[in-house]
């Protein structure tokens, strides 16, 4: 029985045989295309990460918010409480009064 070698079918259209150089070029092109795709995906991932981090970072600006500013007196009261424990009522009161007087003077009221 005669052996049938691939490509012996006379009815089938014979695909053009690529040379090694052509196949290498094709592979390189494919590799470059895939690399571009990977690079583009990395870019997109990094951009997304930057955007999310940027939105999250808004808390850094907390001290400029209205709520931070309107709670300032509470923080000052806490400071006074601590100072009363540290140096006593009399000295704390003296410093508080003198500080308020200085502020009033400097604000021209």
């Amino acid at each position: 029985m005669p052996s049938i070698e691939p490509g012996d079918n006379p009815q089938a259209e014979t695909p053009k045989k690529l040379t090694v150089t052509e196949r290498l070029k094709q592979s390189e092109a494919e590799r470059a295309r895939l690399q571009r795709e990977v690079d583009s995906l990395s870019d997109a991932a990094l951009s997304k990460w930057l955007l999310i981090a940027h939105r999250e970072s808004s808390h850094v600006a907390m001290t400029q918010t209205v709520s931070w500013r309107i709670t300032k007196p509470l923080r000052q009261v806490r400071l006074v409480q601590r100072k009363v424990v540290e140096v006593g009522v009399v000295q704390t009161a003296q410093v508080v009064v003198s500080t308020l007087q200085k502020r009033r003077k400097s604000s021209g009221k």
Partner: protein
Amino acid sequence: MSLTVEELSESAFARLVAVAPHILGDPARLPDLEARGSGALLSALIEEIRHSRRNDQVWLLSVGLTGSFPLPDQVRSARRALLLADGDLAFIDFLEATFGLATGTESLDVTLEVVHRGVVIDVDFCATHLAHTGIQRVVRQTMSRWHGQRDITLVGWSPHGRSMRRLNALETSRVTEWNTYTEPDAHEPREEPGRAHIVVPFESTVVLPEVPQPNLCNVLASLAEFSGNKVGLIGYDAIPVVSAETVPPAETERFVNYLSIVKHSHLVAGISAAATDDFLGFSHALRAQGLPAVPAVEVSLPIALPDSAREAESAGASTPLILCVGSQEPRKNQDAVLFASELLWREGLDFRVRFIGGGSPWFTQGFDQRIKALTKKGYDVEVWRGVRDEALLASYAEARFSIFPSLHEGYGLPVAESLAMGVPVVTSGYGSTAEIAVGGGCVLIDPRDEMTIVDAMRSLLVDSVRIDQLRSEIAARPSRSWDDYADELWDGLVVPLGAPANV
């Protein structure tokens, strides 16, 4: 401020390009990586660090990606993430590890400049504050001499202390032209800041001539430990720890945080032998933590005046003036001076006392009341606060002698300034003030024994021969100027860390 993804990507790409030459083993790869975009560039930098395993590069890439200097734990977790990552996922793992740093940043829309093998000097406090006591005097006197003459980059910090930045013109003037610049009116419109620009020292010398603000200590400790920069600092004293009873508790807390920078720094230049000993003591204690000792060298401050009006006129009043200069706080022992003065006034001696210096209201409130009580009794005592150098020097010129009975000092600038003005000084007989006194012109007392203060004051008030003798001793002292100090500090602190020597 709301930013578009394009703006964020553009500035992140520029930052990565800026740090890349210091991470890539073969910088020739950079143009190709740039052409492929920020994702590819970041991946390549991550791969390099996975091979080099260099902490300084982890630190640098973290800054490049986020525009923020990482804290010690953030460097460690980024490094661990890189080393544990499966090759292909290292990119994602690094983004995850640095997300906390990125969200803590002030803005991701910043540009970046790497100072490579340069000298970066952190003068944030002097640049942004108008206080001008001991440390600020040293910084301004020294920087005014280095600026323009040496290749240095003066930096401050971003508003929330996340990154270093260059100083603007006004801030530079506050540091380098203290006695000649004019502070603009606070109501004058300020220039609108554009996109923030940060300075990143790499393989450089970072000098810390100030004691940094508490919020900067951790980030500077990280820089000292991980960034590969050589960190050198001026060591003023360890008073908040070794004489903690004399300072407010917050000062001690602040100083302890500062020690976290000192322990990872590379060289300390003490302002006196006593201050150098304090830092060497801490340095020896580091052995218990498995850390190398931090070398400390002595570069003593000069006996010199500030640069302003050197010719001060005496007011020529007939009643002798005793001058007591220095911030008003328990450690400086001004109450002992008040006590001694009152005893001597009661003895019938006629003299005036002037205190010059500011202080925390927690002390000055009571101190001012004691001054008021003495004034009511008819004694001639006054307090001057917020005076400029001209008034200070005029007071020295007017004084018969000055007194500085501090309980603990890193140096004692008022002693040095008094001697530089030719005015005898009564001061503490140990530590740095005793070091200064070695050259003559001083009467040493025990600041804890008030009667020795009384005796010294009485002697200098009644004995003009003694005063003349002390003035002769002062005249014979060898002179050492701020110019000398600035040169010696450069040679003693900056050159050993890698900067060029004096030409």
